[in-house]
């Protein structure tokens, strides 16, 4: 595709609800990343996939957060039993190779508000 797309763009959830955020990376990109960005802060790394393998999930804040990329393309970030502190913009990025240190292309983000 032309760029990284994310859906939904906005999500309002009541505390305790489960949410699923989708990321469509650029076609053919090997690496996929999820970040969480709180208001006024820089993005914080959550997790990283190389194809379908989740190689790094050290940034996931709790076991309520789960990410998958079963076929090595589309990825879903799931948050169970949402809490107010989960309110943030969730950014997805992809990178064309599995080599280190290449630029990442970011999607527009999903703004999650937990009420």
């Amino acid at each position, binding site marked *: 595709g032309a760029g990284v797309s994310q859906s939904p763009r906005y999500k309002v959830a009541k505390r305790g609800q489960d949410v699923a955020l989708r990321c469509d990376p650029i076609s053919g990109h090997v*690496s996929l*990343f999820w*970040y969480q960005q709180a208001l*006024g*802060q*820089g*993005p*914080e*790394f959550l997790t*990283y996939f190389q194809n379908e393998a989740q190689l*790094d999930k050290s940034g996931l804040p709790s076991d309520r957060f789960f990410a998958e990329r079963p076929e090595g393309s589309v990825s879903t970030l799931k948050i169970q039993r949402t809490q107010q502190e989960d309110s943030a913009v969730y*950014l997805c*990025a992809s*990178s064309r190779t599995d080599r*280190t*240190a*290449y*630029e*990442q*292309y*970011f*999607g*527009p*983000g999903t703004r999650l508000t937990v009420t």
Partner: protein
Amino acid sequence: SQQGEEDPQALSIQEGENATMNCSYKTSINNLQWYRQNSGRGLVHLILIRSNEREKHSGRLRVTLDTSKKSSSLLITASRAADTASYFCAPGVTDKLIFGTGTRLQVFP
């Protein structure tokens, strides 16, 4: 931590002036990337400089890297109102990017 710390936190200039932002980091790195984020276009990669490079140019952007001081700078020349955004550095040794809190640049017409 590989986190970059940007300085200043906020910068206001007039169109046509130059803007300089600095980044310091703590560990040895293989490369350092700069990104820009504004409400219109989201987070966009600007430039990547590798640890064996000292300076790199891209259009009106000039990035320097001093690995002995663990610091980098981003210079935007002849700034435009459209350059108004937050600028982040992301030092790293892997694909995992660790962003700082950014420099918020305001360019007044």
